[in-house]
């Protein structure tokens, strides 16, 4: 029995391999994702464990609400004295560890893109975790060290000058030492060290620490010391053993990475979903081809169960092989993914690839599971073959088409799917469960369409094939007829492609809506001409930069803005700031209550709120709301105005003054500065002047005009879009494999027919063209269905977002290009099958039965 299965698989090895490929891609992404995130997590674990070496107890400030940049509040340096007095403390020292910019000789960043850079202070040797592999520890003003990897990236050596930017002006330092963290990799991150007073000055943390590190006297355990120290310190400080601190930090990273994991796994799920269509098709066709064989086995006394088992055993083996290959490919993919991330400037730290048992087990479960589930219906169908089929001349045409049953099942699925989507659309979009519902709804609708689609193939293929018939005459006609000959086969093949393309068009429409909405906000709400922002795109910069810009000749007003997250009613809420004296010159909004004047009049104990906050708090102008800072302090603010929706993140849900966000919320750096150019001044010249003025002291800052701002936003959207396209390409490639394998199987079925066509004078080229046309028809069917569905989904999802200033736009030319590319992909998918069909030996073909 088993050997028969292997012989069968071997006899049909090409189709078995193609079937396996349909799963391999998805499994590779699953395994690759796990390997990548596990490897990264382990690298971070190592970083945190190593950086706490020698530290028995670590004291940090609690953060009541997580900030997007992950920063934690600093605390007063005066606590150090108290800590030092605790019994059992051998050594205690405060440090600063703060985001900043580290620039090389050319004043280019030493890190890449989004990789963070830190300015930290040196510690006494016992507590210092960095190893100085070259040079010496910075001992005074003008001296700094840098991690060796960053130095190598930027080709810096001892004695070279590095420029550090914290919350003030850029300052030059001489590189006196190169560090390593016990061989741990930082990825794209770089760390510079300077002495404590300088670090405090650079980062604006005079009289403050980010952490106090403590070493215990011998005989005192870290736990004992932790308990003793926490008794003398207030509650808003967190006292942990070094190990606890490392674990907590690692957990935070793990949480941060979980988003990446989920996103990548979602794409894997899509590829696997598409792959299951391909498997279903191959097994259906194979079972149809083997009707006579199964009939023969039945006449020889095989039971239905035995037949079922043979087919399922084959799919089990295919799934098993696919999983093994998938895991191996996944290892390569993990490296590929981290290369992609590094290329877009988010290099992750990496050591040797980490393959956990979980990765292997999950990959096998999914790989084998999907293959067997997808082949279940064909397998059951195989058991229905009666013994008499052994004698029948013709090969059965495949699945029975029970139109009514199909109709009912797909209608039920469609209703369930649409209901799920409707629940989300009406009930609000936020939260993971909404995304899950949305996804489940989309899957239901797609499956419903796929089940019903055989009914649509005939008319649809006629329509799509019509132009081909006009161009190709008989060849086009035959291609069209062939695609209609087995509607469910064509339908499943096209549906697989439809899924990928639905997602492609969905994100395309959505991204285009996003960029046109961003453009609109920039045009309508931003009345200034120029924007000052960090060249890295994400890191903030010293407020002095905006001040300096304000003094440039030809500048009417320069207004800084900051962003953070605060707590409102226990929920993290975005908060932004404005400079009342200048803000009205640079932005304008629509107001539910109040006017642009309300911004100018904003006091330090007042707040402007968004419509969302107004609704959830039931608050309006004149009411008071209590807002909690990251440090956990609460304060009442008076609401003075309510902004109408549609600012698309140009403001937070809460808006306070620059002073308040700095003093009360602890945000010292500007996220952007908006500049109004004086009437009559030349914008380009002013831009140049500001650039010149800021270049020296604030090298991390860029000045953009409105068009450049739009372009930079566009670029961010496009980068994201490109990554999504790459990941969706996996699903599309799987569906193209589906086209290839289905074509090959169809050609195999029609061998005799092809031989006859050749015998009556059809040339190889004509045969190739016929196969190509058939592939194009299938591909275009899938593409059109996918584009339509994607656009509809984008439209539906756009409705509830309209309130946030999001308006859809339909990039018709792009969608047409996608359609054409898909047709081209169909042609490419047909290359091998077409060649195979045209190379058929006529003699063998006509004597083939």
């Amino acid at each position, binding site marked *: 029995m088993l050997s028969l299965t292997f012989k069968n698989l071997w006899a049909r090895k090409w189709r078995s391999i193609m079937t396996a490929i349909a799963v391999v891609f998805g499994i590779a992404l699953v395994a690759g994702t796990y390997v990548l995130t596990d490897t990264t997590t382990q690298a971070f674990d190592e970083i945190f464990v190593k950086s706490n070496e020698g530290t028995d107890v670590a004291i940090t400030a609690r953060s009541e609400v997580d900030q997007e940049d992950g920063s934690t509040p600093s605390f007063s340096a005066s606590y150090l004295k108290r800590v030092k007095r605790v019994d059992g403390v051998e050594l205690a020292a405060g440090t600063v560890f703060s985001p900043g910019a580290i620039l090389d000789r050319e004043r280019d960043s030493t890190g890449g893109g989004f990789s963070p850079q830190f300015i930290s202070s040196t510690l006494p040797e016992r507590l210092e975790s960095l190893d100085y592999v070259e040079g010496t520890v910075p001992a005074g003003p003008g001296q700094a060290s840098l991690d060796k990897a960053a130095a190598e990236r930027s080709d810096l050596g001892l004695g070279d000058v590095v420029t550090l930017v914290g919350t003030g002006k850029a300052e030059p330092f001489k590189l006196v030492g190169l560090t390593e963290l016990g061989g741990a990799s930082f990825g794209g991150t770089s760390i510079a060290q300077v002495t404590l007073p300088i670090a405090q000055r650079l980062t604006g943390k005079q009289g403050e620490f980010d952490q106090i590190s403590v070493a215990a006297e011998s005989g005192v355990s870290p736990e004992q010391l932790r308990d003793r120290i926490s008794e003398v310190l207030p509650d808003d400080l967190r006292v942990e053993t070094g190990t606890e601190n490392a674990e907590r930090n690692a957990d935070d990273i793990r949480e941060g990475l979980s988003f990446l994991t989920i996103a990548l796994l979602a794409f894997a799920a899509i590829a696997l979903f598409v792959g299951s269509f391909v498997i279903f098709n191959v097994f259906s066709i194979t079972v149809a081809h083997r009707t006579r064989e199964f009939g023969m086995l039945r006449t020889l006394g095989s039971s239905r169960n035995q037949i079922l088992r043979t087919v399922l055993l084959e799919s089990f083996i295919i799934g098993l092989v696919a999983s093994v290959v998938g895991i191996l490919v996944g290892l390569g993919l993990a490296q590929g993914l981290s290369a992609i991330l590094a290329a877009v400037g988010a290099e992750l730290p990496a050591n040797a690839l980490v393959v956990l048992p979980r990765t292997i087990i999950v990959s096998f479960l999914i790989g084998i599971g999907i293959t067997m589930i997808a082949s279940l219906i064909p397998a059951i169908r195989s058991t229905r073959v009666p013994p008499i089929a052994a004698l029948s001349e013709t090969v059965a045409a495949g699945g029975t088409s029970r139109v009514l049953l199909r109709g009912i099942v797909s209608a039920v699925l469609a209703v369930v799917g649409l209901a799920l989507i409707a629940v989300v659309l009406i009930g609000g979009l936020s939260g993971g469960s909404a995304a899950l519902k949305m996804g489940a709804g989309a899957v239901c609708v797609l499956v419903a369409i796929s089940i019903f689609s055989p009914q649509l193939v005939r008319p649809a293929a006629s329509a799509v094939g019509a132009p081909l018939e006009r161009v190709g005459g008989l060849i086009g006609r035959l291609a069209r007829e062939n695609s209609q000959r087995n509607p469910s086969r064509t339908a499943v093949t096209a549906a697989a492609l439809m899924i990928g393309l639905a997602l492609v068009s969905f994100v395309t429409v959505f991204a285009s809506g996003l960029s046109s909405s961003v453009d609109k906000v920039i045009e309508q709400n931003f009345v200034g001409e120029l924007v000052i922002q960090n060249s890295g795109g994400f890191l903030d910069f010293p407020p002095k930069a905006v001040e300096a810009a304000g003094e440039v000749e030809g500048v009417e007003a320069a207004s800084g803005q900051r962003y953070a997250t605060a707590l409102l009613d226990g929920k993290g809420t975005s908060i932004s700031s404005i400079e009342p004296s200048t803000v009205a010159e640079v932005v304008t909004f629509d107001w539910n209550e109040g006017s642009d004047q309300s911004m100018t009049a904003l006091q330090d104990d007042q707040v402007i709120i968004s419509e969302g906050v107004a609704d959830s708090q039931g608050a309006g102008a004149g009411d008071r709301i209590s807002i909690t800072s990251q440090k956990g302090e609460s304060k009442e603010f008076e609401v003075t105005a309510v902004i109408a929706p549609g600012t698309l993140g140009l403001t937070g849900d809460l808006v306070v003054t620059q002073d308040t966000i700095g003093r009360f919320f602890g945000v010292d750096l500007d996220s952007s500065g908006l500049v109004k150019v004086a009437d009559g001044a030349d914008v380009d010249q002013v831009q140049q002047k500001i650039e010149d003025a800021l270049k020296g002291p604030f090298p991390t800052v860029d000045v953009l005009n409105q068009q450049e701002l739009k372009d930079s936003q566009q670029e961010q959207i496009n980068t994201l879009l490109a990554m999504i396209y790459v990941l969706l390409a996996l699903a599309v490639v799987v569906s193209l494999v589906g086209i290839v394998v289905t074509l090959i199987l169809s050609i195999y079925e029609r061998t005799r027919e092809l031989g006859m066509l050749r015998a009556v004078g059809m040339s190889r080229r004509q045969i190739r063209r016929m196969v190509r046309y058939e592939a194009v028809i299938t591909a275009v069917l899938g593409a059109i269905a996918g584009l339509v569905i994607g656009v509809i989904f984008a439209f539906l999802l756009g409705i509830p977002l309209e309130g946030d200033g999001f308006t859809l736009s339909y990039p018709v030319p792009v969608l047409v290009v996608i359609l054409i590319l898909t047709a081209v992909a169909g042609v490419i998918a047909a290359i091998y099958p077409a060649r195979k069909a045209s190379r058929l030996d006529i*003699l063998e073909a006509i004597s083939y039965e």
Partner: protein
Amino acid sequence: MESTLEERRQSETPRSEIVVARGLERTFGTGEAQVRALEGVDVAFERSRYTSIMGPSGSGKSTLMHILAGLDRPTAGTVEIDGVEITGLDDGELTELRRDKLGFVFQFFNLLPVLTAEENILLPLSIARRKPDREWVDLLIDRVGLDDRRTHRPSELSGGQQQRVAVARALVTKPAVLFADEPTGNLDSKSSDDVLRLLRAAVDEFDQTVVMVTHEPDAAAHGDRLIALRDGHLVHDAPPVSADAVIELLKTLA
């Protein structure tokens, strides 16, 4: 009746050889498994004649016909069709040759299931993108008795009707030679008779040339000439006398 036909042909058509094969050899496989299907066959076929090829199973009939029709290449020897040496032609040239000069009828009816009977008949012309000669096509369809079946698909036709469609398809291009390999192998005697009559008529009325492989003495008796193969050698070449005589001949070959 035989003789009158013979006379008519002699008087109307010049005797020329349309297919000429010299020293044909065909070997399959190598070493132990080597099979010599043809071991030196010289044969020529004249225009407007109906030749039957007979012989025991495995004697090389199909092999000979495939080589004559350019579907297979001989290991040695040459084939000329209508004055063209075909053994050296490439695939494109062979395709052209099949379009212009050859017609085929196979044992299995080999129609395209997606096309109607008439479309199947016109298929060789459509493939070559040629305009059909309507008169000729109508005559042909009428003659094969499918006038009322033009728009039927193959699945709606009987085996005999399907084979008649195949014959009409082979004739639609007015080929130099029509090759048929056991065209009645899958038919009952009534349908066989229809098909054989049709081939006979193709020669008599339309001046076509037919070469047919068959196992049936009755079928062979329809022809003007009977050649027989045994073990890859041509062992008999004469006009058939009667079905009974053919049976006798076959006995001596077996």
